[in-house]
């Protein structure tokens, strides 16, 4: 290895470039800009104001924040539902008045005051909700008018009853506690705000009514057509917003013990600003409670901070305006360009020096020497099939294969002319295997591990494994389950080829060449899935050894085959049995003579091998060239290899014509024939193996003669 290559390998294999892309795929990076704004604001004012972070000071100064965030929470829900509520300020003021008047004028207990405030809020919210949700009036205009009505009502009430409120001597410890007291060091309003935020967040993200709100906001028409009760959903968002405003109104009532003409003035514009600074979009479709909260904190900390630093009228608005503009512009640009950035940086190739290999050229005399035998196959289902990645035969000689349409097709013995859709699963069924009771197990690309009973019942066995702590992408999900096989004890061993790409993006994975393939096991006894091995370059075919004590699995992009021990002294470990093959291995299956068949989906080329030693070149290639111009692994010539349990290559079958089976992803021996599948083929091939045991079948080899 030259020094330059060593540097390259350090640079590309040790620097975790791929993490940037993985982080960018996260939904929460959507919050990056508002969060940054939050950190800058809090840090800035925290250092500028002495004692800003002092607990005692925070307890008092965050009371207003608590009330404000509750209002913002309500507004965000309305906005997520595709509306807007400008009347929050009025509802806030009216509820505050309701609480104050019940407590001071009618001298009722605190809970009555709270009930009065909530009733006011719900009533106002219901009016808004009825007008906007049920009558379908325009939200902006309608809530603007209800805002003015509410404000006028409040002013009239304050003028007429303020004097009575002031003269009242009503006292209550509970009232004072809500306004002044703390629980575990938190003021009541902050605690309430936290509870509201958590409950609302969970409701929005994990409950049916919450999903309905998001669906309506995302596309009202589609939600309507999907049968969601749009009107009721919208109605409820306004009621909720009214409820939130009323709770906030009650809290300020207890804090200030009075209602004045200025209560809640301009609150709507401040709340709207907060929601927007946090990154919630008007008209629905994008946003969250967290965003709203971040916006609320930013806006309030800044407004109060500037006042506290003694800046005069105007500075506040100037900074707020600037910040709103900058935050929103960056946010919008970020939102628009994130997927572009993601496309640019996600593919992060690594350095790999492939080992020297033996030639596969016809006449080279090596065990890998390709011949023309596969061109002699007869075709089954020509033109009816699309993408039979794997093929398998049952005890009754019927042939099964998956298709790109998410179906498993069955060809009936003996002539395989007749076919039917055996089961529809979805995804892209890849590897197939029969278990002891004749259930067809399939690795379905992009979905997981599935089982189809002889009665054609489809059952999901596994779609996820344990989440590892260090991985940034969600590696619990099975993105590309590829092949499976069943152990004598019924456990299903299967591979998940890559953690970083979906099944259809396998080519990107080959170009990146990062080792992220896994071997997993599903235990039918308790339904659990465990990761056994990790870090293979596209883990692919799996085959149980004849004695059932170990299994073979292929590592495609490294051109290797490994043996994983299930029992014996090496149980739980893997060893490489074949390395540096000239082709990319795919599925592996048992042969009747005690050896194993292995498919080559394609052949190595010197050019691609060379490119693997130049990760920078591959990175530039994916960024700057259209996909058609990329350098891919060659998948236009392949073959079938037979190897022994010790890894010795017995023979190699090929198709030099390039007509019948240039690429092979799977083959299955059955009663003297070899059935050949290919993921890009439109048929299954059938090749008569000279001298093979004509009684040998897969199910019998695995599960014995009995039914």
């Amino acid at each position, binding site marked *: 290895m030259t020094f330059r290559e060593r540097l390259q390998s350090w640079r590309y294999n040790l620097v975790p470039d791929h993490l940037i892309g993985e982080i960018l795929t996260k939904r929460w990076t959507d919050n990056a800009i508002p969060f940054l704004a939050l950190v800058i604001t809090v840090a800035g004012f925290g250092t500028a104001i002495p004692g800003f972070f002092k607990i005692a000071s925070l307890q008092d100064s965050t009371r207003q924040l608590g009330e404000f965030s509750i209002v913002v929470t309500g507004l965000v829900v309305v906005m997520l539902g595709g509306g807007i509520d400008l009347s929050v300020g009025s509802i806030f003021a009216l509820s505050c008045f309701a609480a104050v008047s019940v407590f001071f004028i009618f001298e009722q207990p605190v809970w009555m005051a709270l009930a009065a405030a909530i009733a006011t809020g719900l009533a106002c919210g219901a009016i808004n909700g009825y007008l906007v949700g049920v009558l379908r009036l325009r939200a902006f205009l309608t809530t603007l008018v209800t805002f003015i009505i509410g404000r006028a009502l409040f002013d009239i009430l304050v003028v007429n009853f303020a004097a009575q409120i002031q003269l009242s001597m009503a006292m209550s410890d509970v009232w004072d506690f809500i306004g002044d007291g703390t629980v575990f060091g938190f003021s009541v309003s902050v605690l309430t705000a936290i509870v509201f935020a958590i409950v609302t967040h969970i409701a929005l993200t994990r409950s049916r009514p919450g999903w309905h709100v998001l669906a309506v906001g995302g596309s009202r028409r589609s939600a309507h057509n999907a049968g969601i009760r749009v009107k009721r959903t919208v109605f409820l968002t306004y009621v909720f917003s009214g409820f939130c405003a009323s709770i906030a109104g009650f809290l300020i009532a207890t804090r200030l013990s009075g209602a004045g003409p200025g209560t809640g003035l301009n609150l709507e514009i401040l709340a709207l600003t907060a929601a927007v600074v946090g990154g919630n979009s008007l008209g629905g479709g994008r946003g969250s409670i967290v965003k709203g909260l971040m916006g609320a904190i930013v806006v309030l900390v800044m407004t109060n901070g500037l006042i506290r630093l003694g800046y005069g009228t105007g500075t506040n608005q*100037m900074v707020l305006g600037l910040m709103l503009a900058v935050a929103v512009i960056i946010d919008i640009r970020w939102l628009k360009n994130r997927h572009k950035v993601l496309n640019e940086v996600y593919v992060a190739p690594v350095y790999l020096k492939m080992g020297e290999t033996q030639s596969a050229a016809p006449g080279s005399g090596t065990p890998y020497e390709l011949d023309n035998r596969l061109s002699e196959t007869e075709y089954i289902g020509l033109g009816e099939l699309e993408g039979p990645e794997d093929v398998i035969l049952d005890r009754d000689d019927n042939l099964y294969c998956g298709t790109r349409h998410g179906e498993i097709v069955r060809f009936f013995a003996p002539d395989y002319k007749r076919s039917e859709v055996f089961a529809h699963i979805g995804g892209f069924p890849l590897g197939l295997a029969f278990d002891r009771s004749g259930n067809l197990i399939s690795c379905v690309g992009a979905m997981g591990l599935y089982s189809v009973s002889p009665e054609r019942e489809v059952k999901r066995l596994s779609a996820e494994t344990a989440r590892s702590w260090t991985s940034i992408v969600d590696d619990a999900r099975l993105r590309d389950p590829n092949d499976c096989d069943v152990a004598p004890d019924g456990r299903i061993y299967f591979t998940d080829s890559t953690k970083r790409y979906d099944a259809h993006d396998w080519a990107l994975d080959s170009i990146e060449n990062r080792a992220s393939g896994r071997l997993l096991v599903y235990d039918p006894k308790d339904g659990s899935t465990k990761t056994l091995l990790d870090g293979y370059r596209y883990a692919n075919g799996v085959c149980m050894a004849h004695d059932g004590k170990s299994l073979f699995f292929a590592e495609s992009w490294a051109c290797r085959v490994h043996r994983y021990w299930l029992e014996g002294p090496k149980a739980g470990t893997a060893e490489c049995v074949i390395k540096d093959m000239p082709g990319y291995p795919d599925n592996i299956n048992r042969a009747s003579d005690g050896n194993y068949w292995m498919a080559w989906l394609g052949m190595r080329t010197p050019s691609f091998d060379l490119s693997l030693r130049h990760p920078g070149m591959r990175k530039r290639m994916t960024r700057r060239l259209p996909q058609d111009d990329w350098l891919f692994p060659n998948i236009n010539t392949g073959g079938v290899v037979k190897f022994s349990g010790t890894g010795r290559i017995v023979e190699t079958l090929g198709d030099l014509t390039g007509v019948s089976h240039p690429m092979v992803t799977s083959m299955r021996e059955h009663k003297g024939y070899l059935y050949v599948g290919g993921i890009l083929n439109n048929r299954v091939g059938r090749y008569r193996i000279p001298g093979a045991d004509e009684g040998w079948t897969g199910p019998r080899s695995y599960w014995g003669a009995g039914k």
Partner: protein
Amino acid sequence: MRQSRKLSQEGIVLATAAVIFVVAGLSLPGFLTPDNLVSIVRSVSVLGILALGMAIVIIGRGIDLAAVAIMAMSVAWYLQLLNDGMADGTAIAIVLCGVLAIGLLNGFLVAYADVPAIFVTLASGSFVFGYVRSQLISQDAVPVPPDHWLARFGGLRFLDIPIEVFIFAALAVLIFLFLRFTKWGRYVYYAGDNPIAARNIGIPVRPMLVLRYVISALIAFVAGLLTAASLHSINTRVVNSTLLYDIVLVAVIGGIGLTGGKGGVRNVLFGAALIGIMLNAMTIIDIPLIYQNLIKSTILLAAIIIDGLVNPRDEQTAQQGDI
């Protein structure tokens, strides 16, 4: 078709205005005098002028929440410059540049940075107010210097009708002609109705967007000058008042859809008429302001509800994001 057109929102608003007008005319002494009619028009002329600017922006599927800030702050800055002894020509040139810059900035951010108009103008309105208030002027209210042309201008009368009314009328006619009869005026509707289609057929959608915000800013400046001319001072507190809501209300209540592409000068005039007649009648009856607000908004709500009942929106054809 004819039936449904008769019952459109603008029809309802016009009918409401007419009913109030007739009732007030019959029952309130002094309501129907020419003087009072002029004062009705005058009382809504600045509001109407601002609403005209807003209408152009809204028809093009935008909104200009910075209008009031630009109106008050540009003129406040202008007067401050004059009070500090700057020559009139220089002062007005500088302020005009400022107004243009803000209009351009708004338009640029909406058109080229793809930021929704409501955010851009909310931010720029706040910034304009804050910057001018904190950096350029020292007090909420700035007086017009004695014997300045603006003070005399405010006292101008023609046929005993204040000059504002004529300016309002002239602007209304101008904008009507622009929207109705010029190519670019029609483009405003196309761009408002379907910006993507408008762009595909080759309409310069983005430059026109910028133009609309510049027009709106200039109109706001004119409205500010008229306010100062009449009151001999400008109070920047107006930015924090409900004037902004009133402008949107006048534009939208008359039947200009916030989704764009619909309405025109006529709708602004109807909306302004309704508000003007209502306020004037209530002032004559001597209803306190807080009750006036209640009555005004209740009538507006009734108008909206009737419109909603007569012209219900269809789930299938309603536009996404139409709030």
